[in-house]
């Protein structure tokens, strides 16, 4: 039985086509076929958030999405955040606050932060902690990550006020 499927989708606003088997996860296709290795694999079972991407405006763990499911969808990955010459404000804030050590969790945290701020541009610290509960970090102790998110929310809100 030939189970290969041809999939058309959009990743970071570019049209992308790939061939996969039904059993391939979106995570494995992103990393291994499309060489978008910014999205990380931590647990491969939905618990750590390292593989976070946004599909049609919804934050998901790409290890729990079959690649065949994304036909016709719009996917945002960490590679889509930085501009040609500058980093995204969330990336800058993570650097400023030194909110990373080994860095394997960082793309997931940044994507989860983007999703949070897209929905709620002015979150409280508690809202930040709650919405990042699905992302695990073994290095930083979380405080610096939370501070980075508070910073970036402040900066974007101040800009909005000008």
């Amino acid at each position, binding site marked *: *039985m030939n*189970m290969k*499927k041809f999939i058309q989708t959009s990743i970071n606003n570019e049209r992308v086509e790939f061939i996969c*088997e*039904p*059993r*391939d*996860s979106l995570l494995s296709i992103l990393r291994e076929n499309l060489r978008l290795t910014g999205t990380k694999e931590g647990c*491969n*079972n*939905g*618990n750590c*958030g390292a593989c*976070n991407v946004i599909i049609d405006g*919804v*934050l*998901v*763990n790409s*290890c*729990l*999405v*079959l690649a*065949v*499911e994304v*036909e016709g969808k719009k996917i945002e990955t960490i590679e889509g955040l930085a501009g040609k010459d500058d980093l995204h404000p969330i990336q800058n804030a993570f650097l400023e606050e030194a909110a990373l050590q080994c860095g394997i969790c960082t793309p997931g945290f940044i994507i*989860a932060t983007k*999703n*949070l701020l897209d929905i709620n541009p002015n979150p409280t610290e508690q809202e930040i902690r*709650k*919405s990042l*509960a*699905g*992302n695990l970090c073994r290095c930083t102790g979380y405080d610096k990550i939370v501070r980075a998110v508070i910073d970036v929310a402040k900066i974007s809100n101040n800009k909005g006020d000008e």
Partner: protein
Amino acid sequence: MQNFDYIRVKSKDELSELLDKQNKEIKLLSGGTDLIPQLREGKKDIEIIVDVKNINEMNELSFDNTLGLYIGAAVSCLNICQDVKVKTMYPGLIDAISLIGGVQIQGRASVGGNLCNSSPAADSIPALIVHKSICIIESKDGIREVPVEQFCTGPGKNVLNKNEFLAGIRVPKVDPEFGAAYLRFIPRNEMDIAVVGVGASVEIKEGHITTARLALGAVDATPRYFDDVFEPLLGMAINDENLDRILDDIGQSISTRINPITDMRGSAEQRKHLSKVLTKRTLLKAIERASNQQEVN
């Protein structure tokens, strides 16, 4: 991951047709947050995965003044928790549904999947039971309705026949006299499976309790519904000085009627203790909600 084929269906008719004809091992895919890890662990011998998320009728989330709330089996927890009507009318359901995983799981996980995975610890099930919810089950042969408390038959097992699927869940309309709540105990604040989960609902008329329902998760092979422990509560005034003691007694009695297991999340003894404490707290919260609701109206 094991090999399987993937089919996307667009209507309930197409799905019924397919389930009726196939003699292969089929599993339906909704959010995949239970199924995909299970496939990866090789726990299931499956030949075809049928994706039901793209069926419009199964994404229906609607409210009707006589029938109440209808939750299509594939509606995500996120969509339910964002719905203003559900939030204001069914806070006891939101208690449970909002607990299922973190943000990333909420966007994919469905209540239909939570029910059909039939874990004894599934958070939505006790809350659905105390809301008197009904499973709408469909197949080529027609539609049948099963109360949620009769849906699960064992860990990972339920009443669905091979040719049947869960189309949706109907949650009856609630009166202003009604209040419900769901509480669970987990080692972390987020992202874990219940050690014990308790759903409770009550109705209060003129300051007196007229009905009460209680359901517990993670204390037995299936979520447990208790329909008979409330005689001491019925007719009782909510400011009665004996209420506290009676709630303790109910909790005590529940803790002797369950068969919890010992596993990495907790011992059977701890689960019995938690059942007692949470039964009381959840009932108190349901009573509080029912009384506040009446003040608003």
